[in-house]
């Protein structure tokens, strides 16, 4: 089998953000199987949790589980755990802007209830 080496350093230039070994990191199928199973288990978990009477914690738990699942997908299926800083930063920037949109918009909606608009 002609699989490339897992860590092959080949710096062509001094680009600070280029760590060239990312692409060649091959995640073994075992990891995928574990991750896939975890995801299925968490799916069952979240359905089960939704039948419990937890008040405000129902959505909290549902979202928490969803976040865990999403993180696992991003880290392993999407290889971010093995990727360059740049990729991690990119994901971070996306999540940050997404939260900005939501949080700053809701800031208007929640403070309207304080009485003045």
């Amino acid at each position, binding site marked *: 089998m002609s699989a490339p080496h897992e860590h092959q350093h080949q710096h062509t230039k001094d680009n600070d953000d280029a760590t060239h070994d990312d692409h060649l990191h091959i995640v073994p199928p075992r990891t995928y199987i574990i991750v896939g199973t975890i995801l299925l288990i968490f799916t069952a978990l979240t359905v089960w949790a939704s039948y419990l009477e937890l008040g405000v914690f129902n959505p909290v738990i549902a979202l928490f589980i969803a976040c865990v699942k999403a993180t696992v997908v991003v880290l392993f299926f999407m290889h971010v755990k093995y990727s360059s800083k740049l990729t991690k930063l990119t994901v971070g920037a996306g999540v940050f802007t997404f939260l900005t949109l939501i949080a700053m918009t809701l800031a208007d909606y929640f403070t309207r*209830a304080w*009485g*003045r*608009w």
Partner: protein
Amino acid sequence: MDHISQVLWQFLEKWLTNFSLYPPEASKIAPQMDALYFFMVLVSLIGLTIVILLVTGFSILYSKKRHPVAVQIEGSTLLEATWTIIPLGLFLIMFVWGALIYFRVYTPPANAMNIYVVGKQWMWKAEHPGGQHEINALHVPTGRPIQLTLISQDVFHSFSIPAFRVKREAIPGRYTSVWFEATKTGTYHLFCTQYCGTNHSAMIGDIVVQTPDEYKKWLQGSTSGMSLAQNGERLFASLSCSACHNGRADARGPALAGVYGSKLTLTNGQSVSVDEAYLREAILNPSEHVTQGYSPIMPTYQGQISEDGVISLVEYIKNLNSNDRVEQTLTTTTLLPESEGKAAAVGTSTGQTSTKQGMVKQ
């Protein structure tokens, strides 16, 4: 030639008489707003002058002729810090000052006289508490804080009185408010400043500021019979509100006397203070904020009362200080024809969301 110069002269004259550079200051807030405005103009002029002086000065001093070889300079932390911090400081002053004015403009004093304004494509309708209606005009007295409670029947509009330096958007589905105290008599422009479709530019009118005496006279001269509260009372009866809100011990709904201005606790634990906006919500979307101790049985009146009708009801409830008046409506209900009372109580069964149906005549 002669003819032409005459025309020209007329034109010029017309121009000169129709020319102004600054709007009149006709409200209490206007001088305060202008103080800030001129402060900002001043800062801007200084800033602009500095920039212009720098650019032209250096251009002259260091033109290629005078200064053939450039001296390379990296930068200067001190200078850069200066022009970061000074503008920032000035901007922050403007922010604080501006915010103070903003809150003043949008926080009506408790003793303000309330006038309702309904905007719709393409006219303004003002409703005085005494029941006087005005279209594209608003009469107000000097020396008295006036609160406007605004709502739109369709799209966004904006109620703008440049001479007062106040402006507030009238939005669909929710009351907004603004207040002012006029100081100078006269007639001023009223504009709709939010783009609202074809005749946006025709949605204009006059603000007539009168002395309190003149205003009183005007009020008397233009009463149309019923005050808002009286009209509300009529509606309260005809829509059978009094069937539940009759103030009796066995009533299905809470007594409404004195509810305005009080604080209510809702079933979801929230506490709300009852203002015009809340009353409107309580009538149109009752099940969204159910008062503690009651069940959500009150039907929605959405789509059955026009905004003017809601305003009358709100004004009526606001002025309910004791339950006597409600008792009276109970007697009037029985006098009214059956059908009108019924028409309002339906609505639970149909799944229609149309807003046009079942309007009760005002």
